[in-house]
């Protein structure tokens, strides 16, 4: 893969019947990453994925996959050939058995990996003769995942891969993703509203809210850079404005001023010291806290 970013979107907008599903969404997904695409239900995750796959056209903006515009018919066919996609519906043919579903799918993909098929048939313990419609939700997910993993794709796009799965099944799905990425050179882009699983297997994340990217970057950078700083004053906390970079939120309550910084604590604390606080506390901020701070509550 020569492109620095496997997926790159810029100012992506999409309107459905006058409703703005995406309002300027920008993403940069590096090759080889496991990229968590976090947002509440209805934030625009599925719409974004449809645009990336060329299944819908943006109202404006660009979406590049493998360096080619997914909005062009010819390019999108080529792009889809190199992508493994699992929709949130886990689209499968209910009247087929597991075995028929696999044997039906394989011939569509010239780079089908028979070795991986054998591996995942075993490790997922899929009942070969059972009808798809009789599969449990977990089994259904594993079958859809097998079909996506075996096609020799360079990019895996998963829409809410673990939704509706119990914790044990979720762990099993995450584990197979991690193992797959460790042995095959590929990029995984998965949408989720489960912060914990992005924390666990992701190395990059975008948090989107109401069709816009609100936070994006390498998870380790976010963990390094985000800090909550609490200043306590002898009297009422002053109504100060701060010039330090990365001051995201300032809350005053009585004698306490709480600040969320996205650029570490050093510069802010140096600036805040001029206000003579009686104590200064700095704490790490979790991804969950970043999510809750940046995503707007129910309107």
């Amino acid at each position: 893969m020569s492109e620095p970013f496997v997926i790159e979107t810029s100012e992506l907008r999409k309107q459905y019947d006058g409703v703005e599903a995406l309002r300027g969404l920008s993403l940069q997904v590096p090759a080889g990453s496991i990229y968590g695409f976090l947002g509440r239900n209805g934030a625009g995750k599925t719409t974004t994925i449809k645009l990336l796959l060329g299944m819908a056209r943006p109202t404006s903006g660009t979406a590049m996959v493998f360096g080619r515009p997914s909005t062009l018919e010819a390019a999108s066919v080529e792009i889809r050939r190199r992508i493994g996609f699992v929709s949130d519906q886990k689209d499968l043919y209910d009247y087929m058995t597991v075995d028929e579903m696999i044997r039906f799918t394989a011939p569509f993909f010239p780079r089908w990996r028979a070795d991986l098929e054998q591996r995942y048939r075993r490790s997922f313990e899929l009942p070969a003769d059972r009808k798809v419609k009789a599969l449990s939700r977990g089994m259904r997910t594993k079958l859809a995942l097998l079909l996506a993993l075996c096609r020799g794709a360079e990019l895996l796009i998963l829409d809410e891969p673990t939704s509706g799965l119990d914790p044990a099944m979720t762990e099993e799905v995450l584990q197979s993703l991690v193992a797959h990425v460790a042995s095959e050179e590929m990029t995984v882009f998965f949408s989720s509203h489960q912060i914990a699983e992005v924390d666990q297997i992701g190395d990059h994340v975008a948090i989107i809210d109401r069709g816009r990217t609100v936070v994006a970057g390498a998870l380790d950078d976010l963990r390094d850079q985000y800090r909550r700083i609490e200043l306590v004053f002898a009297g009422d906390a002053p109504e100060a404005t701060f010039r330090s970079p990365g001051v995201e939120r300032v809350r005053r309550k009585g004698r306490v001023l709480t600040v969320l910084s996205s650029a570490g604590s050093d510069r802010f604390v140096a600036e805040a010291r001029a206000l003579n606080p009686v104590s200064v506390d700095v704490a790490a901020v979790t991804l969950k806290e970043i999510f809750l701070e940046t995503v707007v509550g129910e309107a």
Partner: protein
Amino acid sequence: MLLRPNPSSGVPIYLQLMEQVKHNIETGALRPGEQLPGIRPLAEELVINPNTVAKAYRELEHEGVIELRHGAGAFVSSNGRAKKATDTLRAGQTLVTAAVDRLRERGVTDEEIRRLFEAALAGLNKTGGHGE
């Protein structure tokens, strides 16, 4: 060897892994020359991103704690530098343990202690007015 990073603690997972490997060396659970688990099996066992394991190993190599031998895997360094780092860390650990014990005796909670350390590392101890 016990490695158990907590993905949702807000601390980068590779840093947690690095600390835990060092701790295992300190306690003798990992000895000089011993092999560490491979990147893939460890990522799979802990269900974390393989890039994260690779990053932790690279940084540990950079610090001289482990050696990455091409094609063979990761091994605990047997050179003096790693041992010296271990000794320094062990001495530091004694100091920290003593400090934590004394703070607990005074009724400071673990969460408060954690914050005090974080604040001290961020260079805020000047406002606190205490020093050795």
